[in-house]
């Protein structure tokens, strides 16, 4: 567990807008190990999504560099699969077609890609819904499809941009448990953005707190809570200690960003 997979070095990102330059991320550095589950928390607009977009290769940093497995990310990087908050499923594709969409783009035969997709669909508990369209599914089910679509594309890294924020509290809890199970099964590296400190603590190996805009690393917490993190863990001293520390830091940044905006 000590092999560095992602190396984010002094990355910064400045947008040119009609109203002037916006520095979204500034001098951000972080190493992520293979198989690690890293959560990023931070105030709204602090640059979390921008960071993720750079990792996916959608935009190039204006300063610094990001490397994946030693290669600097220079263009769209399919080795980093993204899961969006709004699922971003193709509404015109059935569940099966959505999940096998990545392999299809690589011209893998229909038989082969459907077989693989079926496995993933089963793994996220959607067996029987292969021919349903996303519009016919609940939010939680759609998020499962998005998860299995990303996994069926066999990425090295899962990038998650507040994937569960749109779900209700109970569905969210179920999805969190599922994600942890799958991550532990597959050993994928996960970078997970969330607004919820509870969620970050339930999921992660490490929690990164970002400063208000321009986003930098404000603090990194090693999350040594034991697995599985059921109710018992959530009552433990250590959980509450971590929660309070993170909360205080985030709160400070939220306040700072509110002050600065006003």
């Amino acid at each position, binding site marked *: 567990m000590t092999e560095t997979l992602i190396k984010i070095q002094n990355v910064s990102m400045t947008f040119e807008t009609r109203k002037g330059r916006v520095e979204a991320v500034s001098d951000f550095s972080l190493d992520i190990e293979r198989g690690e589950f890293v959560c990023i928390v931070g105030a709204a607009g602090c640059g979390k999504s921008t960071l993720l977009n750079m990792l*996916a290769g*959608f935009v190039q940093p204006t300063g610094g560099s990001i490397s994946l497995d030693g290669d600097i990310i220079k263009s*769209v990087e*399919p080795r*980093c*699969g*993204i899961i*969006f908050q*709004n699922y*971003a*499923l*193709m*509404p*015109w*594709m*059935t569940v099966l077609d959505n999940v096998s*969409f*990545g392999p299809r*783009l*690589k011209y893998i035969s229909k038989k082969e890609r459907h077989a693989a997709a079926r496995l993933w669909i089963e793994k996220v508990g959607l067996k029987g819904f292969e021919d349903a*369209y*996303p*519009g016919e599914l609940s939010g939680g089910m759609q998020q499962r499809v998005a998860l299995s*679509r990303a996994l069926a*594309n066999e990425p090295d890294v899962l990038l998650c941009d507040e994937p569960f924020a749109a779900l209700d509290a109970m569905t969210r809890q179920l999805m969190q448990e599922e994600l942890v199970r799958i991550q532990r099964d597959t050993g994928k590296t996960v970078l997970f953005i969330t607004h919820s400190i509870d969620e970050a603590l339930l999921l992660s190996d490490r929690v990164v707190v970002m400063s208000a805009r321009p986003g930098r690393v404000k603090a990194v917490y090693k999350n040594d809570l034991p697995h599985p993190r059921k109710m018992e863990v959530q009552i433990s001293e250590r959980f509450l200690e971590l929660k309070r520390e993170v909360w205080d830091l985030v709160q400070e940044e939220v306040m700072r960003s509110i002050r600065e905006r006003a």
Partner: protein
Amino acid sequence: MKNKKNFELWQVAVIGSVGLIVFLTVWEGAVRSGLIDAFFLPPPSAVLKRMIQLSTGTDAVLLRDIRVSAVRVLVGFALSALVGVPAGLLMGISPTMRAFFNPVISIIRPLPALSWIPLSMLWLGIGEEQKYAIVFMGCFASVLVYTTDATMRVDPLLSLAARNLGAKRLQVIRHVILPGALPNILSGLKVVLAIAWTCVISAEMVGANVGLGFRIWTAKEWSDTGQVLVGMISISITVLLLDILFRLVERALLPWQKHGVHR
């Protein structure tokens, strides 16, 4: 949460039929009572009679008119879609294309089909090509604009997701932009199809000897108001039928969309 009555389909049909019957009865009554001169507005019964006359017997001209007009509409419309949809996609995808062609399009778009009659006669004479051309010119710019719009409305998140899964530029267009824009392209085409009908009536003003437009214009020359109304009602019915047909096509092409039973 809704505080609106929601009628069942059959209820809508019944109320609608009552509406139609009231409309027709008032019309018939106004003519019979002498309130309106039958020469100025023949009653529905007379129109129906004329309609039957024109669609039965040795020369059932009405059905032939509908067929010929429909062919003209469909050819002109299909041509405009064939050119307008790809061009619109291109303009939707490329901001440069869009900025480049927009001014020219906005000059062509407001022109009524009717205003193309002089030029089209000069260029193409009075044959079928001229009819197609008028329908085409009346439709093309609208198809283009609707398609551009539809393309631009495709959620950019979906393109991002596809690229993240490894899609190349052309694959994004093929697998995301095209199917994503399809619903709005189709509803645009549905609107344009109705426009195409208004164009064919223009096209058939001059140099025609068959078609619903021709039927109306000759009826006018002979002062046959009943026949004018038959022509008008035939347009309505044909457009409504085509609309239903189009909805079926839409349903077949977009199985993933929820299609309301009635608006």
